[in-house]
């Protein structure tokens, strides 16, 4: 039986719905941030410079995942693997830079947690931290698909998982850019 395949693939559709859910979660947090900012006791801040570099890293990773997807579609498997690996590496670097950024932030006297912390700083950790969790999820999915490409005896040419990951990766990239701009403007 052939399925009606003019329409969007159900998995892709589910992904978009899931992204809508994630957007709502961050919308909830950022609106809480905006409300909190207008109340007394808010302390403004500037993010450490390392967050600018981490933003560049995640932007580049979006390019590499797109190159990997294009290579997969053209069946250039070694190129696909290379750029997939680069993407994963950039993801890891991004996470490390974010964590270093948190330490620098906390060290500069802007306590995010513990005694004497201010909700303004805590929000940075909560929101950016939750974003890291989403990057981690992307990395796990990347790893699963990546090793499947090696492990199969018969070549698996199903492009859907790769497309799903690429879409998700672009999404978490844009999400971070949004959060970065948000923190920079509404500090």
């Amino acid at each position, binding site marked *: 039986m052939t399925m009606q395949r003019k329409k969007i693939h159900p998995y892709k559709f589910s992904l978009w719905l899931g992204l809508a859910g994630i957007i709502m979660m961050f919308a909830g*947090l950022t609106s809480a941030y905006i*409300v909190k900012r207008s109340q007394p006791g808010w302390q403004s801040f500037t993010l450490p410079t390392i967050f600018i570099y981490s933003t560049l890293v995640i932007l580049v990773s979006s390019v590499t995942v797109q190159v990997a997807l294009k290579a997969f579609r053209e069946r250039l498997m070694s190129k696909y693997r290379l750029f997939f690996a680069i993407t994963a590496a950039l993801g890891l670097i991004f996470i490390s830079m974010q964590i270093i950024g948190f330490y620098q932030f906390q060290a500069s006297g802007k306590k995010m947690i513990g005694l004497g912390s201010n909700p303004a700083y*805590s929000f940075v950790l909560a929101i950016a931290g939750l974003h890291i969790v989403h990057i981690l999820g992307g990395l796990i999915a990347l790893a699963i698909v990546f090793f499947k490409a090696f492990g199969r005896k018969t070549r698996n040419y199903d492009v859907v998982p790769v497309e799903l990951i690429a879409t998700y990766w672009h999404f978490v990239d844009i999400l971070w850019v949004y959060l970065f701009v948000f923190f920079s403007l509404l500090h």
Partner: protein
Amino acid sequence: MSNEAVIQHGTVSHEVHEHHEGHHHETFISKYVFSQDHKMIAKQFLITGMVWAVIGGLMSVLFRIQLGYPDAHLPWLEDIFGHWAKDGKIQPEFYYALGTMHGTILVFFVLTAGLSGTFANLLIPFQVGARDMASPFMNMLSYWFFVLASIVMLASLFIQTGPASGGWTVYPPLSALGDASQGSKLGMDLWLISMALFVVSQLLGGLNYVSTILNMRTKGMTMTRLPLTVWAILFTAILGILSFPVLFSGFILLLFDRHLGTSFYLSDIVLSGKILPNEGGSPILYQHLFWFLGHPEVYIIILPTMGLVSEVMSINARKPIFGYMAMIASMFAIALLAFLVWAHHMFVTGMNPFLGSVFVLLTLLIAVPSAIKVFNWLTTLWKGNIRFNPGMLFCIGFVSMFISGGLTGIFLGNSTLDIHLHDTYFVIAHFHIVMGVSAFMGMFAGIYHWFPKMYGRYMNNTLGYIHFWVTLVCAYVIFWPMHYEGFAGMPRRYYDYSNWESFKQFVELNKVISFAAILSFLVQLMFIFNFIYSIFKGRRVTSKNPWGATTLEWTTPIRPGHGNWPGEIPEVHRWAYDYGKDGMDFIDQTTPVGKDESKH
């Protein structure tokens, strides 16, 4: 290779192929435990939900004993619950834990997971004409995340400090400070972990429901030919996908406050005479995040039952549902307004009165689509050839309850009246009638009606009638008087009212309410007996379409296998409500439209 071609060899059609050939070997584990069949997952959700309903219902019986008989000493309580019921009397901490867990369990585990999980899984693939969900695997995960959430929540009942006890809404600061109460300790953490798992379960399920409805419909099944059950579940799932993540974000901040010393929700607090260092937070922030889910949540509970009732009522009135498009439009309006009214739970938090008035307007607007729906149900019944089977009785009971509870919503939605009524028994009466009892009535209607599809047997009718009448009468006896208690200012959540002069008038009334609560709990046990007994010994279904219904699930075999239809999936030619058309009793959806057939 093009995208389209690749997918034809991909997982989706591969699975379909397996169903087709029938060499899909199933073991006990893959059939009954880790099943990916939507019908089995539906039964799993239903039975897990029933177990929770008994636990949650029993809790209400226990706290009703305290409320009705505050002076009674019942030694058997101490035998069972130990120091939680010292001297045979339910202790205050136990009472608060019971109330909190009763709310949590009934709202989330029974009327969200148990209800949507059962009927979305059972009906979506059947009624849209699909062999299974878009992703059966994710569907299975959805159930097992629910089980995990259940295990964690259940475990919290047995720890030394007891489960969460700060109310089902777990407002900070009580919930954010471990030292604030017994129930704010480990029980609160387990509550949050369980709810996080629960949210994951709901999202996995919801994504699947929406993408199955929009992408997996059979040939000819346009959106306006879908039964209203499917429409209702679609709106429910969208509400869940958009609101549960916001609740999740509220929980994350709460966890930060509990364990990382942050002050999102905390400021200027004195605890046991000690001033806490937390500054700059606001507990109201949590309420906003909570109610942004919390309000859509009540529609997540009631919308599926509106769908079930519309469908079961139309079938048993042998008439098309009145105002099909108006039903869809009103559900859309309810779903939209659901996101714009959350602050009506917070009128007394010191909100700007102008902002409050906006929320009053939006809240009262919900009366319009709700009234349209009620009107349509009544006109569906009008001059119908009604079959008063238990399913239909529960539909009518649903409409009765929905009207009673909906009218008191107009009182509470008014911010000035709410100053007096807020946190009184009037609120308890309102929401129990409009979303508790109504939702249960709708769910019972669904269970009695689709039981033959689930198990190939009927439930016992006599027990069904007893179940309906006792439930209906008890529900009104329990909740109607609570309105008067609320008017008199009796606050909710208090442990013992007998020492207030102004509430002494209600001592006898509270006994009556408690008696009715216990009786209605017992009759639910009878329903469960009927359910289990009928699975094994019920009268067998002998024809594919025992109710004379038009929808696709009744074109499958009496006990459909994995994949639902043995041959091709039937094509659909008409909407789901051709009852009593052109002198025919009913015309099912697969029958092509005749040349000289009249238009509906």
